[in-house]
């Protein structure tokens, strides 16, 4: 994969795309700007998104609004315990008139796949989705079929009401670039939401503002974003901080470093910048890292979430300068 240094025009295009998508989503989901930004960064960094929160805060709405705002195909899967892998990937059916098998693509063959309540499906079905996320292809009856590009899985998961569910193991969660807790809206935002739903479906008002081709170009631009050694140093310092933290039983993997950098690049491009700032890393550290680490028993007992631990680490790691000031030799 070759990367080219993005031109100012390309950067402006990405920034403009991000602005337009934000505007559209804002009409539906006021007050979720951070979640929207993280979602956009995830899609531009070719990652996948895990939305984890209580029911009714707009997880699915966010996913659907995103699908509408981007002029792309949207597949939706409601995960249930009896869902089979073939319900996700598609199935070959025999056509008697033509004496051959024909492949009926499953809902996974879409630019944006909304996987609702992924933890309700059996591990086998979960694995089928997660494999296709990793490979960006589906293999049925020995034939490998590529998935469309761009390809984004937005999975939602309900952290309470866990009976009869199969929570995603850590290794599987690692395949999602970001996890976002949507959270409750502020009182003002909630009132605005009531107004928006007054009599009609606000989703219907969301107009497509970007095509799949636009997204493809933006993704290419993001790949060319520059990350200076100082930023990489900072990013590695943060990730290593999770491994040395007494509050964490399991730190973040090297894969998380790659994904954090990719997401930070996307955020930089969305701001029209051709280089990553430590601010990008900071903004995305919790969404990218929190679902990959396991808090230690005492942290859990103290009621500290993984996000809180990550924020503690961010408050400890120094932002490196290009060169240390006054690095004079002292005797």
């Amino acid at each position, binding site marked *: 994969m070759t990367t080219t240094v993005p031109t100012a025009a390309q950067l402006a295009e990405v920034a403009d795309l991000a602005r337009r998508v934000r505007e559209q989503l804002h009409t539906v989901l006021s007050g979720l700007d951070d979640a929207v930004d993280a979602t956009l960064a995830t899609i531009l960094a070719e990652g996948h998104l895990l939305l984890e929160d209580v029911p009714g805060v707009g997880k699915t709405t966010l996913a659907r609004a995103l699908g509408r705002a981007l002029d792309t195909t949207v597949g939706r899967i409601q995960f249930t315990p009896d869902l089979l892998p073939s319900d996700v990937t598609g199935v070959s059916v025999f056509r008697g008139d033509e004496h051959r098998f024909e492949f009926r693509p499953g809902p996974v063959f879409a630019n944006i796949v909304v996987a609702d309540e992924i933890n309700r499906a059996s591990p086998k079905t979960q694995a089928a989705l997660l494999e296709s996320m990793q490979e960006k292809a589906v293999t049925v009856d020995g034939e490998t079929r590529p998935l469309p590009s761009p390809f984004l899985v937005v999975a939602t998961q309900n952290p309470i009401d866990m009976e009869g569910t199969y929570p995603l193991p850590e290794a599987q969660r690692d395949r999602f670039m970001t996890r976002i807790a949507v959270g409750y809206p502020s009182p003002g935002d909630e009132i605005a939401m009531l107004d928006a739903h007054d009599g009609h479906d606000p989703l219907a008002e969301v107009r497509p503002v970007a095509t799949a081709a636009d997204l493809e170009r933006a993704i290419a631009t993001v790949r060319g974003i*520059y990350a200076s050694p*100082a930023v990489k140093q900072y990013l590695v310092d943060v990730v290593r901080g999770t491994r040395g933290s007494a509050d964490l039983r399991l730190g973040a993997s090297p894969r998380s470093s790659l994904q954090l950098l990719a997401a930070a690049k996307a955020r930089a491009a969305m701001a029209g910048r051709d280089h990553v*700032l430590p601010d990008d890393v900071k903004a995305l550290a919790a969404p990218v890292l929190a679902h990959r680490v396991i808090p230690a028993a005492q942290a859990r007992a103290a009621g500290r979430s993984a996000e809180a631990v990550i924020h503690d680490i*961010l408050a400890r790691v*120094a932002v490196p300068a290009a060169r240390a000031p*006054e690095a*004079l*030799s*002292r*005797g």
Partner: protein
Amino acid sequence: MNGGRWRLLATPLIAIAAGLGVGGLSGLVVFGDWLRPTGAVLGATAAVVVLARLATGRPFLPSVAGALAGAWLIVVAYVPGPDGGTTWLPRGETLDGLRVVAERAYWYAQTSVAPAEVEASLAGAITLAVVALFLAVDALAVGAGFAASSGFLLLAPWLPALTLERRVPTLALAGALGAWLAVIALSRRSDRGTWRARARDGASPAAPGAALAATAATLLVALVAAPLAIGGPGWGAMPRLTLPASLGGNSRLDLEIDLRNSLTEQSAEPVLTYTSDSGRMDVLRAYSFGTFDGTSWDRDPVGDTAPATGVLWPEDTGSPLIAEPGTLAIRFGASAESRVFVPAVPRTLAAGSEWRYDASTDEVLIDRPEGTTDLRYTVRLAVDFHTEETLRAADALVAAGGDSAVPARYLDLNERIDIDKVRQVAQAVTGSATGRYEQAVALQDYFRGPNFTYSTDVAQTTGDAVSTFLADGNGYCVQFATAMVVMARTLDIPARMAIGYLGGTADGDEYVVRGRDAHAWPELYFPGHGWVRFEPTPAVQTGDRPAYTPQDTPENEPEQPFATERPTAVPSRAPVPEPTVGAEAPTEDGSAGFPWITVVVLALAAAGGGAALWARGRARASAVTDAESAWATMRRRLGVRAGDETLTPAETERWIVSEGPDLGDAARASLASLRAAVEDARYAPTSRAVDAEALSRWVDDVTHAAKEAERGEKARG
């Protein structure tokens, strides 16, 4: 904030190291209660520095606070007010008081005998020096971060010990060295400090080798270079480390070389103690030296001896000599001499049947294997035997050939001496004198005059030691005594050198004579009267002249602001407690002027050094060459208001705007420009060049606006 804590610990350690530096004066002053206020002032100053450092992040402000506190404490402790009370609040008169104390300390240092008892003004001067040393080292090591290099300053108080005494109190030196090394070790911990700590100390930790190299260099300078440079060539140039007294040996007069070892070793070992009903003895006499070959003396051979009974005195002056005798009870320690020490006046001994007396040398021999070890005896003496009248009376006998009874060796002059030249000097000195007594007094006055300086720093000479001494004027008691003996002989006065101890120091009812009291003096023969001691060695070493010679007059003695405080400490050794002034010869008229020149030079040097440091600090603070240094400079100037090191430039900008004082639009724009420049420099693939002038301007805009805003807030609130 871990990075800052070492400073709080380092400052007391530096105070300890500086305080132990007083140990470097061990041979020059007598330690006593005066150390307590010195320690208290030093401790209080260190406490002020530590507290100030807790209160402020600025590197040198604590030093300034410490200097003010230290100066005030010294004024309170050492400068009496006009009414004699304590000066709580320095006023105009305090300057006068300060001047008086300084003059007094200087006079005292010049005239007192080392090791000197320390009186208040001298203690004040020493305290001032110690506090100044502490503040300088603290500013260098903790303020500026040059912990290792500060060792060179800490070396300063040891220079007198190294260059004058060539002895170093090992335990104190080891303590100071240890404290200093601890400061270095502590300073290494600051490498992981906050960004401000690192900005001050340098981000890359100094290699451990740097500390090692500094230690090695310090020891090299202390032990080799300084003594060689200042002491010059010659034996004894290498310093000797002193063992604690409990490990040391006993003192004994070394008759083979000369007294230099006894003098320079500064032995505090008691040789003997005595009680006396007639005050301190001038000298206690043991040996006679009559033959001088130009560079060294030979002991007199033992002549006819008789039991040491009756009045012991070489001249038969008839009985009863001792009409109103004084009594002396002497107790020897471990010292094993072969002669019994007696006063240099007619005396009787109440002890020891095996003792014998040699009238030709005036020595009392003791015939037992252990010599004088643990000897106790009582002496009765003719206290006021020598008087000006009796000595003047001898002139008649001289004319009548009274010297013929004296052995010829006491007039002998070795041909290696430039006899004619010495005689010329002697005749010039005694030109107007009539009679032997006046000649002797003239010679004594000549040596105690301004041309001669007491010093144990005498290079070895081969050939004519007397001419060398007369030319360069530097020597200790042996040189003075030898020169006076030789000059007397050129004037046909029989003369010899006597060796013994000076009278020691009072300790309760007793007097204690120590190894460092070893002394040599000339004796001149007065027919019909005997051998009479004169004292050419300057007052710094021996104190007053013999009572039977004219005393110092106010014209040739420096003014004494406190006559009762006349130095009583005992004789010997080093010139004066202050090496810087001690080496100077007294001024022409014999009065020592206050060394204003020295003070002015020192003050100028201090001011110059301070200005250089300040300028360097300014230069470093304003060393805005690129965006990174501009950013660092701005953060340093804003201090805590710039947030901490975990903030990105953009977050720092927000922090300053939200938490700091209100900067105003222009300064906020400058701050944003600065932030953009540093982000660009750090993180962009190719950074735009921003000229240093613009960066400097932005930095100044922001810091100036912050200061203004803060001032405004203070004014309002």
